[in-house]
Every structure is written in structure tokens, then in C-alpha cells.
């Protein structure tokens, strides 16, 4: 498959007689590369689905154990029609967004402010490492005791999954600021707060956004783990329930929705990143 596309790419670039301009050519070359990547990905996915479908004929034990793409599609349609797909996605999406927002807000504020004091950051360091090494799932029972079985406990799980990562990435960004740039600010007479505001915060944005992209997934995992423990709605609830009833294709259907949700959230973060860091648009 891949070789086919590559050879066709080489062939297409051969007729160099009526080429417009080098810039347009380079642009076309990049676009063609992107198309080739997308086409190959689609082919790989299609091949996987075909093999999966063939290996799991209707009514066979394999279909029961592994589901089949057509059965999964059927459940997706059914869930969309009875509205549970949208409801569960909205519930999990809300939990994820709230946890993502709170975890990143708290983590980033703490991480950046640690730049202020070498002493405090040294004192705090082992505690952060200790907290960061706790598997969040181990906290789920306590979180449910503290925050109940509703929305708050899922948001808390999601927040906890995010906060340490956000703290570490933003702190790393803040202490990674070029020492010469700090010297420059000092020679221009900047106070510590001015250095923080005009240099440290904008310079850390790259790391902060790297953290944001990473924590989208963590926030979603946190919310779903929370739903696994105890819940009456949400994608985690749907997965857990379908799993307990051995309806494997429905598990996969809910997973597909989860994946789409993650992709949408990641795409949103990327959009915001480009909006907030216009100087990086042309890089």
C-alpha cells in the first residue's frame, strides 16, 4: 500500500514541463504528502475493520467475545437514536472539562508561583513527587466518600489526575527561562514581579500548552475512572454496564464515543494554543 502511493508520488512529480512556480510546487508537494499520509491511515483502518468483520461472523463465539464492526456500528446508531450517546457524552464531557480546567488552573498557578522562591520549591519538591506517584485510581474510594456519587466526585477525580502534571510542566517551563533573558530584564531595571509577568509567564506558555495537551487525556481518564466506581450516567457508566452484561460491541461503541470526545477536546486545546500564541503560527 505504502509503496504504491510512494511510486505514484514520484511519477506525478516527473512531468516538469509546465510547472508554475517553485513556491507553488513546494506547497503542492507538502499537500500531496499530507494526502498520502491520510490515505494510508484510512487504508490501514479499513483493512483492520475488514479483517475484524471477517473473523467475527454473526452468531459465532468470536463475535460474542470480540464484537464486530457492524455490531458496534449498530449500537452506535441505536445509542444515538435513544439519546443515551449524547447524554453520556455530555455528562463525561462536562466532568472532563471541569476537571481539566480546575486541575490546570490550580496546577499552573502553583507551578508558576514556585518560580518565585527557590526555598519553597525545594521544600515542596519531595511532596510533589510523592503525590505524583500515587495512582489516582487508588484515591477513588476516598473521593467518593468525600464528594458523594454525583458530578463532584468525578470532577474531583479528573482534577486530581491533572493537577500534578500541570504543576510539574508549568514549573519546568518557569525555571527553564533563559538566564540571559533574566539578566537583560535586570539590567533594564525590572522588579521580580515584572520579570515574572513580562518574561516568566509568556516564556512558560509553550510548556504550559504541552501540559494542557497531555492532561486532556488524563482528565478524561479521571472522569471515567470516577464513573466506573459509582455512577448512573456517563460514558464510563455505559462501558461498565455493557461490560457487566457481556455486551462487548456496546463496550466498544462507548469506547468509540470516548475516543471521539478526546479528539475533539485535544483539537480545541490546539485551537486555543494558536489563538494565544500568535508568534508561533509561522514556525
Amino acid at each position: 500500500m505504502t509503496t504504491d502511493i510512494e511510486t505514484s508520488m514520484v511519477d506525478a512529480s516527473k512531468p516538469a514541463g509546465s510547472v508554475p512556480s517553485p513556491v507553488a510546487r513546494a506547497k503542492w508537494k507538502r499537500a500531496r504528502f499530507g494526502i498520502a499520509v491520510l490515505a494510508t491511515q484510512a487504508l490501514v483502518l479499513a483493512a483492520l475493520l475488514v479483517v475484524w468483520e471477517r473473523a467475527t461472523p454473526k452468531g459465532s463465539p468470536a463475535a460474542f467475545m470480540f464484537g464486530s464492526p457492524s455490531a458496534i456500528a449498530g449500537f452506535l446508531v441505536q445509542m444515538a437514536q435513544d439519546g443515551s450517546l449524547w447524554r453520556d457524552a455530555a455528562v463525561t464531557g462536562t466532568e472532563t472539562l471541569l476537571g481539566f480546567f480546575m486541575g490546570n488552573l490550580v496546577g499552573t498557578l502553583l507551578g508558576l508561583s514556585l518560580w518565585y522562591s527557590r526555598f519553597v520549591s525545594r521544600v515542596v519538591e519531595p511532596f510533589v513527587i510523592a503525590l505524583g506517584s500515587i495512582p489516582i485510581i487508588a484515591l477513588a474510594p476516598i473521593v467518593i466518600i468525600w464528594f458523594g456519587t454525583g458530578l463532584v466526585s468525578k470532577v474531583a477525580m479528573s482534577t486530581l489526575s491533572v493537577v500534578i502534571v500541570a504543576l510539574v510542566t508549568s514549573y519546568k517551563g518557569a525555571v527553564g527561562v533563559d538566564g540571559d533573558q533574566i539578566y537583560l530584564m535586570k539590567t533594564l531595571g525590572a522588579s521580580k514581579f515584572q520579570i515574572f509577568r513580562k518574561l516568566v509567564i509568556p516564556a512558560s506558555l509553550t510548556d504550559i500548552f504541552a501540559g494542557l495537551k497531555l492532561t486532556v487525556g488524563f482528565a478524561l481518564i479521571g472522569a471515567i475512572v470516577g464513573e466506573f466506581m459509582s455512577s448512573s450516567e456517563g460514558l464510563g457508566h455505559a462501558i461498565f454496564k455493557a461490560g457487566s452484561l457481556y455486551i462487548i460491541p456496546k463496550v466498544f461503541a462507548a469506547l468509540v464515543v470516548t475516543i471521539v470526545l478526546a479528539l475533539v477536546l485535544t483539537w480545541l486545546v490546539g485551537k486555543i494554543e494558536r489563538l494565544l500564541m500568535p508568534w508561533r503560527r509561522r514556525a
Partner: protein
Amino acid sequence: MSVEAATHARPGQGEAVNGTALPLVVEHVAKGYDLNGQVVPVIADLSLTLRKGEIVSIVGPSGCGKTTLLNTLCGLLAPDAGRIRWHGRQVVGQPQNVGYMLQKDLLFPWRTALANTMLGLEIRGVPAAEAEDRSRAMLDQLGLHGFADHYPATLSGGMRQRVALARTLVNDPDVLLLDEPFAALDFQTKLLIESDMVSLVRKGGRSMLLITHDIEEAVSIADRVIVLTRRPTAVKATYEIELGSDRADVISLRENPDFSRYVRRIWADLDVAIQ
């Protein structure tokens, strides 16, 4: 700022002219750094003077502590011994009205050329409209008209260094401290920026201390060239550069036969210092 009126305390040494204090007087400064508990001397004993409106170049073999010297001068490092006086005063922390420029342009990538230029004025609380006007005018003077709203990533190395120069000059410094600011640029770009910079500095009556390893650059720009020994650093020789009255045109100066004589002599000095 803690201040000590040292100008008249020790007359003979500071070369203080009656009444007006010299922009910069360095007396017997020593500086070392700590390596596993042992002090490694970088600057052994260094004295120099910068007069008003004077351009002084410092050349020395690589690794002779030029950057340490500069960081000590502008208060980022404290000297182990000796005294540094700015306008007759010993200063704790950063001296006032001193512009500092390095080989790295240190432009903030998230700020446009204009916003980078405005940085110092912004920090000092100059009203935004005034800061913008002054910065635009400075960018125009340095040939960056039309590039004010460009981000550094879209500018060439020479243009970026011009923005850095604008950022320095817009604060109206009495003294400029430059640490090989154009070393990373190609020869032609470097000559053009140098010539613009020297004419702006001379026109403004500013003093300038330029640290460089490029002897031709040192001779063409400076009124005086100070040659340093290798570590631990001290002054090896001082040359008064006399190349006629028009020192603003640093490009045609290079054709002066005396120019190459100075360069050869300083080169010979450095050569000895290396061995």
C-alpha cells in the same frame, strides 16, 4: 541604591576630572569563581577608565574572562576585590542608565519588534503612547521602518540584532556595555550595523565599552583599545587609536594605512598573550 561619594575620597587614583565624574572607573577589580571549594581566579587585577563620549574596545584571547568582566561591571556579579564607580559612585545592583547588549539578541519571541523595543520603557513606567512613539522612531533610525509589527521569528539575524540595539538605545543610556554583539553576523551585515551604531552613539555623546575578539572591529570603532592578558586577566597594553577626526565612518576608516598598523600591532600583542 547604596551610595558612597568616593570621587573625592581618593583623588589620584580615580582620574576624576574636577566637578564632573567619569562615567566609569574600574580600580583593581579581581573576580574568581568557586570550583569544588577552590577559588579559580578569572580577573587578577584590572583597572580602566571610560570618559564621557569615549568608545573603548577591550580585546583579549578567548576565555580571558571578558564576559565575567562585563557581568561584574553591570552589577550582576560582585567583585571579590577592587572598586567600580559609575559617575563617581559605587553602586549596589544594576547601575542606572547603562545599556547592555550581548551576542544573543535575547528578543522575546512573543513580542513584536516594536514591543521588544518598548520593553525597557515599559518597565520604567513610561506612558504607553510615548514609549511607542520613541520606540518607533528608534526602529526607523536603525533602518527597521515597516518591520515594527514583525515577530522576531520572521526577521533575519542582522535585523534581530538591530532590534536589540534599538531596545538598548531607546532607554537613552549614558553608557553602553557591549559583549561581542555582532559576532554571530556575517561580515557585511556586521559592518553596516556597526557603522549605524557608532554614528548614533557618537551623535548622542554616549560612552561605550565594547568587548570583542575582532581586532579590526575594535580598532575601527574605538578611541582606545585595551588588550587583556589571558587568565588570570590583567591589562596588557593600551592603544590610543588616532585615525583622524571623522570616526563615525567606520567603513572607510579601514582603508587608512594606520588602521592596519594598529591591527598588526595589537595582533602581535595578543599572539604573545596566547603563548
